[in-house]
């Protein structure tokens, strides 16, 4: 119990410290980097619903991200609809895409889902490039800056975005907590451990996976909208590429598949790695950070499949009882 409260205290302290950062420094680069860590943390948590909890490896989350981003921008620039509403429309569009991808695939076992997420990713990328009038093609779309306005999610300072994204991360985390403790969360965990056994106990695995994918896609769509607002610009090369899909997955895998705190660690490590290699090697050696990603992914899979979070016992998956307790009990 004491440990439980200790952990809780630590979390509150951590949030307070993060919230204080904009007061301490006005270095835009630092704020931006930390904000990107928040954003990718939330994306990693969203990915984890399907990739971690349901153990269905998605390499197509760029689809949901770019649908969220493009929908929001198009609604804003063409129809003057606030991104605050636009992001929910974007999320809905992403969820429709999720339904189309997931429905046929979850009937099948094996790597079909992974392959078709890649296929849908490519389809969307090609369409985004092709329908120039609507999407701006390879040039992408720019959000014109119309002066500071909370209604349009446009701010002069990075700090405002920083707080919004931090708030969203906390909200996504809390939502994740809610889900994992619920019926659907338990079903997901059961499916991950043993699909046949789960089905024999009345779990409709097809539907449960679909729900997990819908949740994952919805959150990813909202975060995609926020991503667009923060950057002020989207193009297929950045938000719609397989590299983006891999990066989202990487955050969760490096941090800890099927955990809530894992993606936060993963996002910090992956973003940190990118920034570090960029400042060391500069733009001259473009492949460096990606080479490291590749190596990191292989090393994690071979040596720490549970992710870096498994190194830290303290903030591990909270529901597991302590080891000693188990041994006494099983006597």
């Amino acid at each position, binding site marked *: 119990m004491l440990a439980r409260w200790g952990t809780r205290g630590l979390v509150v302290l951590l949030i307070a410290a993060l919230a204080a950062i904009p007061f301490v420094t006005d270095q835009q680069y630092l704020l931006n980097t930390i904000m990107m860590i928040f954003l990718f943390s939330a994306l990693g948590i969203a990915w984890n619903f399907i990739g971690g909890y349901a153990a269905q490896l998605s390499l197509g989350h760029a689809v949901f991200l770019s649908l969220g981003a493009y929908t929001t921008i198009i609604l804003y620039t063409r129809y003057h609809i606030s991104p605050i509403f636009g992001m929910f429309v974007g999320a809905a569009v992403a969820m429709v895409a999720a339904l189309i991808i997931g429905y046929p695939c979850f009937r099948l076992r094996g790597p079909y889902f992974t392959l078709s997420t890649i296929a849908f990713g490519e389809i969307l990328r090609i369409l985004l490039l092709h329908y120039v009038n609507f999407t701006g093609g390879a040039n992408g779309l720019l959000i014109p800056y119309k002066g500071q306005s909370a209604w349009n999610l446009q701010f002069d300072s990075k700090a405002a975005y920083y707080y919004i994204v931090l708030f969203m991360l906390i909200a996504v985390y809390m939502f994740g907590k809610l889900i994992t*403790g619920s019926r659907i969360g338990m079903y997901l965990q059961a499916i991950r451990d043993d699909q046949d056994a789960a089905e024999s106990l009345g779990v409709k695995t097809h539907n449960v996976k679909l729900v997990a994918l819908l949740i994952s896609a919805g959150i990813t769509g909202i975060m995609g909208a926020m991503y667009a607002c923060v950057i002020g610009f989207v193009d297929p090369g950045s938000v719609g590429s397989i590299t983006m899909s891999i990066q989202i997955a990487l955050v969760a895998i490096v941090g800890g598949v099927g955990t809530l705190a894992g993606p936060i660690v993963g996002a910090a490590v992956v973003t940190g790695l990118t920034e570090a290699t960029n400042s060391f090697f500069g733009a001259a050696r473009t492949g460096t950070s990606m080479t490291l990603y590749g190596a990191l992914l292989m090393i994690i899979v071979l040596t720490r499949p549970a992710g870096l979070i498994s190194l830290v016992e303290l903030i591990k998956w909270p529901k597991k009882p302590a080891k000693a307790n188990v041994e006494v009990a*099983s006597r």
Partner: protein
Amino acid sequence: MSAILDIKGLNKSFGGIHAVKDLTMQVNEGEILGLIGPNGSGKSTTVNLISGTYSADSGQILLAGKDITRISAPDRALMGVGRTFQASRPFLDMSVLENIMIGALLHDSSMAKARKSAEEVAEFTGLTRVRDSRSGSLPVETRRRLDLARALALKPKVLMLDESMAGLNPSEMEAGVELVKKIHATGITVVFIEHVMKAVVSLCTRVVVLNQGELLAEGAPRDVLRNEKVVAAYLGGEGHKYA
């Protein structure tokens, strides 16, 4: 006696192997039926076909008169088919109680209700002591008990136990037999797949013997175990020890 499970001309092949061949058999309501046979005789495949884990190539499975051959495994669970797995497979990262809740959630509308039912099942199966343990850390005997408890939480009409006694020592097995009797006493029909003849003889009211995917013999345990065909096919004289 009416048949709760009526199996007609069931077939299943994997690649070139005909695992279940034109199997016709009944499970009567309220009995403990022993399903026995040598390794690879198709017992587990039969259980998998009845539970819907595998889909049949041809043939029919009726549950209380209703055709369930083309119904999905989770729907069969809802209709009252419960089972355990040969290699007992608890959800490793969950506690014992959470494992049981997965089964209980099928009928219970809220988590709180499911937790309460799961606690009752844990009590019934003697798992209360370890209810909060992570199930991946349990010894074999407790795992088998958990497997059974999970299926029991479904409130099944028929419960199929796929080698629930494998790997248990004699005293654990005795406790296992007692538990099965206790479950049977609540009105659940039990299909008992087992290698250990002692357990079969002490529990079952009737026995069906499979060999190479086909029905070889059926009847009262003592009669079947004396049957020459059965002895020749697999018991090899061991049968007489308990007959």
